């Protein structure tokens, strides 16, 4: 698979770090600190539902990070390990 250019990767990473920082800001939901209602789905107090949303948002943000901004050095290292293992006649899945 072709590696995205390093500059584009860094830009994506910077953008995604900003998204993660935004999640940290949104985590401070002072606006309904004292509120229990409305109840989301009829039973989730609004403050808990919001924080659950933060967790789901974090999952998506990290998914984007590993898909679009995974460090090139780590991929290179995996590739060189795999090449070295093949050179020794060993498959990287651990099977002989």
């Amino acid at each position, binding site marked *: 698979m072709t590696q995205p250019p390093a500059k584009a990767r860094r830009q994506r990473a910077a953008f995604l770090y900003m998204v993660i920082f935004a999640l940290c800001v949104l985590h401070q*939901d002072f606006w309904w600190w*004292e509120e229990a209602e409305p109840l989301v789905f009829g039973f989730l107090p609004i403050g808990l539902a919001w*924080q659950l949303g933060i*967790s789901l948002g974090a999952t998506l943000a990290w998914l984007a990070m*590993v898909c679009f901004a995974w460090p090139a050095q780590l991929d290179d290292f995996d590739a060189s390990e795999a090449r070295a293992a093949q050179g020794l006649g060993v498959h990287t899945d651990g099977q002989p």
Partner: protein
Amino acid sequence: MTFGIILAYVALLLGIALFSTRRSKSSSGDYFLANRGIGSFMLLMSIFGTTMTAFALVGSTGRAFEKGIGVYGLMASWSGIIHSLCFFLIGAKVWRLGKKYGYVTQLAFFRDRYRSEGLVLLLFPLMVGFVLIYILMGVVGSGRVIEALTPETFAVSDARTSVVVEAPVTPRIPEALRDRVSFDEATRTLTWSGSLHPKRRGELMAMVKPPTPAWQKAVATVVAKAPRGAVPYAWGMGFISLVVLIYVFFGGMRATAWANTMQTIVFMVMGVIAFVVIKDAMGGAEAATKALLASKSAERASRAGDQVGKLQFLTYCFIPLSVGMFPHLFQHWLTARRASNFKLTVVAHPLFIAITWVPCILLGIWAAAVLPPTTDPNAVLGMMVSRYSGDVLAGLIGAGILAAIMSSMDSQFLCLGSLFTNDIVAQHGHRFGMGQLDDKSKVRMGRGFVVLMVLVAFVVGLTNPGGVFPIGVWCFTGFASLFPVVFAALYWRRSNKQGAIAATLTVGVLWLWFLDEALTGEFLIAGMMPVTFVIAASTIVLVVVTLLTPAPPQDVQDKFFDALGVRES
């Protein structure tokens, strides 16, 4: 029945863990790191299982019972963001260094990066002390959970015990309870024989319709005075410690990873089952929340009042940085087969936290509407399970709770064995007349230290020390405050041993300085988590001392930065 299911679960766990050792080789690389061959799924499950403990299930439910929904924002949603950040920034990079330079422990990395045995000898007691406290959370939690979940297990042996109370009202005793309850009209006394499950409170109450205040008082006295017949705290604690010891002793990291994978699945599934069963027994989720809103504890559904402070809510973000310095997690990182194995862990961790925590938080706030406010927070989950589910489910859910506890304890015990063997005995044994350790000696030595640590944890656990949660938070504070040391080691070329030692000393001194206050209950400084100040102090000290002292040798900079490519090209 409940205890029988727990025993069956433990037998299955031991079977799987010991089965996994059939694939192991008798080398120290296999014993401590499973030959660095763990794939994506097992890495996710073992890391998640290791970070979730009694703290996540028992502690979160109890804390939500006391402090409401804010507990999720404090611990869980912050952790979802910050843990993955640590895995991404620290874990994957440490794995690459470990694979390239052959590190087995966290301290081996620091020794090489900072070229300082002094730093290692300073970090060692801190790491061992913090991990032991962390282990104690699990040990104490396991004893309490088993005790709470197994009333009337020893009903037969309690049969000769009787509780006699005054009862001014004549009760109608049902046939099924005739062998346990008797009423003497002459003296107007009620006698209960044998152990008593708290669930039977309702059966006793129903003997007088409608129950008068005098009858309610008599029932409350019987419930309070009758023996529970539960598995005693010390037995439960010792039993769980022994189980973990067996599979860590024989299987090392490979058995630990397999056991953690199974246990993580079990505690997540059982947590969801507990939630569904209790929710249904309470008349559904909507009814349970509405009952809470109509009760005196309605504020548990919000963060109103003094439940959670806004600055506390903000500064709790530093606590999850502790995973960057957990030595047992560090060891798990080193077990990965490839760097790409970290991807699944980074992505799924926040989702798994939500799946585990949201049900516990809801159970905790719903419990506030039905349990007396004086209930021990650490007993809330056990009491809800006991109150709203049958014996079979209570046993399954109890197994889930114990799975969460054991999946952390095993890694911690193994990690302590690794630290003692690889960083103390192998490095300093010659000073005490010990020769070079061969591979088999390292495994033997590691096992010996695991046994020793289990014994230490058991003996300290016998004193049933304090609340589980404050101990855990303070232990996390220590780890989190050391985060700047590992971050600088990986990302700041100029970072040197003088700065690292000064920062570590700062953390050690401040941690001990505040220890008394930390263990007395909720401890805040100006409304903020104390970790804010300790981590700020350690960061400032690290930066200032580093800049005032010489840069690390060029070969260190080459080895850790240039040779690995700091910048992408």
